[in-house]
């Protein structure tokens, strides 16, 4: 029973990782990160249910709040990036290249 929830969570998380690594559009990367957060949330809630404790729920709510705040910030960053280079391709932003 619990395994199904955890499998779903892992699948979602891996999808998120693949999205971050493989996709080049900034928006897609951002949505992949959100996907990973929600995969984690699902795991939290599932564990909370098994252990019959509210801790996982609390943490899940917490992650949601943080994700909301982060979304506001991240969208602002995306706008700035677009203003800066006129593109949303992550390969364009490589100033840290050694």
């Amino acid at each position: 029973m619990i395994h199904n929830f955890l499998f779903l969570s892992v699948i979602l998380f891996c999808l998120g990782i693949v999205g971050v690594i493989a996709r080049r559009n900034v928006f897609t990367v951002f949505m992949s990160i959100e996907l990973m957060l929600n995969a984690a949330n699902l795991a939290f809630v599932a564990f909370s249910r098994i252990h019959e404790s509210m801790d996982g729920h609390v943490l899940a709510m917490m992650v949601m709040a943080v994700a909301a705040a982060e979304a506001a910030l991240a969208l602002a960053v995306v706008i700035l990036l677009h203003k800066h280079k006129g593109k949303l391709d992550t390969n364009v932003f490589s100033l840290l290249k050694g």
Partner: protein
Amino acid sequence: MGQSVNYLGLIPLFPLVGAVVIGLLHVFTCNKRRLPEKFYGLLACVGPALSFILALKVFIALKALPPESRFLSHKVFTWFSVGDLHIDMGFLADPLSCLMLLFVTFIGSLIHIYSIGYMGGDKNYGKFFAYMNLFLGSMLVLVLGDGPVVMFVGWEGVGLCSYLLISFYSEDRSNVLAGNKAFIVNRIGDLGFVLGMAFLFWAVGAQGFDYLSLKANVHQLTPGVALAVCLLLFVGATGKSAQIPLYVWLPDAMAGPTPVSALIHAATMVTAGVYMVARFSFIYAHVELAGTIVAWVGILTALLAAIFGMFQDDIKKILAYSTVSQLGYMFAGVGVAAYSAGIFHVFTHAFFKALLFLGAGSVIYALHHEQNIWKMGGLKAKMPKTYMTMVIGALALAGCPPFSGFFSKDEILYSALATGHIGIWLVGVLVAGMTAYYTFRMIFVVFHGEPRDHHAFEHAKESPSVMVVPLIILAVGAVFAGFLNFPGIMTISHWLEPSLTEAHHGSVILQVIAILASIAAFAVGIKIAYSKFGQGCPEPEFKGFAAFAYHKFYVDELYHAVIVRPYKAIGAAIWQVVEPNITDAPVQGASRLYILLGSAFKVFQVGYVRVYAIYMIVGLSIMSLFLSQSLN
């Protein structure tokens, strides 16, 4: 036991505070509205004058004590304390330092007053007086210090001030070089002093490192160590007091303003070496060999400087060599364990040499900074007061009875004779004759005969009274200072007795022989000088030996070739060969190694966000693996 008093520290403090105040005033006003010169002059004389008054107070306080416990001490604060070494900033006044104190402050004050006139119109008037006060303050620290370490503070202070003042006219490169030379040569001597001090501390320093403790523990010194200490300290003295082989800086020191020369030669600086040897008489008295070496170095310096003095044409250089020569006498005195005679000569010399220098300064001032004696002549008529005082100074220097120099020089020569140092005595008598010769050669050429440079002669006039009055006061001292140690009465010797470790000898016959020989030498010297220069004579050409002596036996050139040039060559070799290849190579190699390492790691920094995300995930995965392994 002596007394503890709380005003000794003030004596050096007055001029030092004066130096700071004048220096700050000068710094803050020199670029804007300048303060009047009189203000600086007055301010500069206050410190030395107050010190002199306090020195009189010290003298009276000492006089009131019984002779065997005649000393005053003042511990101001504990300077530092490391292991066995406890050094107080402490001052000690005993008969020896009190005598030094009296004439240093007295003559120093007079030279300050004279400088008000001499330095008039100089744009660095304030700076000059700040340095002069610092100079005097350093000398007072040297004289009053209660141990070798405090003495060394003053010792270095006078070295610094001599450098600052010799190169005072710093627009001229040769003056700066003369200052450098004085400073560097003195540093060589100072190294000897420091080593001697270290030896002394190593041997007996644990029970206290001030003169009184050292004197009490001096018997613990083994003869070898005592000899080493004496000779190393004497190396310091040869630097400061211009003896062979380190005398070369003093004639060059004439580059400074004339009052500075007077201060260096009479009151401060060069007498420090003699004072130091007398101060450590408790060690020197136990090591006869060291004393003999000191005496021979002294008398040979006296001879060499007298030879040079006979052939110079710069009035200040003649006086400079006469100082070196007289310092040689002083060392001969302290070398044959006649410490009071040596100090007595320091005392009388301070008067007549200050007088001669200030007189020479007066002549130079009148002739608009002309120093070549062959451009002078016949000045007797134009500058009667300067002439009279200079003649008195010259008679004292030449050792004419009953002027002061006669008594002190005779005392030294008599001591050499009485202790069996016949060779030193003979050379001393010879030098006495040469002294009379070159002193009166200078007097005759400058003041007698016909004027050689008519233009300068027409414009020459007597110096202002602010310069002449100190000359007259010093002339009185130069005449009468000798009577303080009249043979048979010996006021100064008795006064100094508690401070010094010396034996007394009495032999009327030897005394009479010494006196007659000195007088004969003086008479012969002045006779030759008169027959050659008394009626005026043209500038002679130096040939043969005279030319050799005129060029000071090429000692400067020799030092330059043997020491300075190889030293520079070594420096260049180190700079051009050792530094790039040996010291720089590892340093630059290390930096290249890091650049190489960096370029190896650089490939991982691709700049794409997703690659960094991969690194992160790989890292997290490895960490998780380790974690799960360790949990199982």
